[in-house]
């Protein structure tokens, strides 16, 4: 059993008083006190075309279905005008857009990975070279 810790720290001065959010989680298998122990490994992919492609394919991670898998993705660029569109494949309306990762933005989210409807797709906003950093933590329980 591995121990994977993830901490988030959010600070904002949108309000007249400071907002601080700090939270740490230990990634565990679904319904268990045991930690996740599989990963895709940390990867980097460079894109040079405005084309939607699969970043994480459910068919390659069949053990992850309906569990507690998690995905981290970051746009390694610094240009706030360039972004990746992150979508979940969905047969009922083609794709469900999650959101856009602008330069430097990151996400950490759970991944249902229940069917091909849940492939994680990415599309750059420009043909200029852009790079994603990503890793999936897989729950094989």
């Amino acid at each position, binding site marked *: 059993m591995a121990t994977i*810790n993830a901490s*988030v720290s959010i600070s*904002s001065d*949108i309000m007249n008083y400071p907002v601080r959010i700090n939270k740490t989680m230990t990634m565990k298998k*679904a*319904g268990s006190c045991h930690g996740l122990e599989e990963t895709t490994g940390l990867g980097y992919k460079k894109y040079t075309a405005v084309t939607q492609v699969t970043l994480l394919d459910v068919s390659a991670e069949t053990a992850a279905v309906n569990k507690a898998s998690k995905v981290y993705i970051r746009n390694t660029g610094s240009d706030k005008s360039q972004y990746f569109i992150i979508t979940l494949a969905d047969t009922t309306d083609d794709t469900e857009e*999650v959101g856009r990762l602008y330069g*430097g933005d*990151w996400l950490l989210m759970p991944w249902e990975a229940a069917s091909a409807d849940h492939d994680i797709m990415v599309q750059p906003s420009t043909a200029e070279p852009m790079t994603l950093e990503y890793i999936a933590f897989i729950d094989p329980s």
Partner: protein
Amino acid sequence: MATTTASVSISSSDLTPGTSLNINASTTCMKAGLTTGLEIIEMGKNTLTVAESASSGVSLKLATAAGADGASKVYLCNNATDDTFYIRLDLHDTIVGRLYAGDWLFLPWSQNDTANELVIQAFGGSCPYEYAIFKEGETVVAGS
């Protein structure tokens, strides 16, 4: 201009033999395509109870046309303590994933159409949760 900063740290000393995993990232959350910060924050906490009959969950936040294709960010944490209790997050009719007790998420939300609402539902047992949504400004039209 408001400044909202989000940082993440992911670490493990025993996930991959012989190699420690350390990921650290930080971003300043800006409006879409701009270098000006987000202007609206909505946050709170509540408790989700398990529906006794079939349920499609409750909307944490509806997508709005005003927010379409923006750079909103969502933080959500399941504060339950029972390892078997989880909150399922859907985007409209697509399941994103499960937040088990203690799990949190942080993701962008572009509200690309009004059928892109955030839906949450508890399974196993009651789940206290906390959330924050950071958004771009919205135009408010004065009454005539």
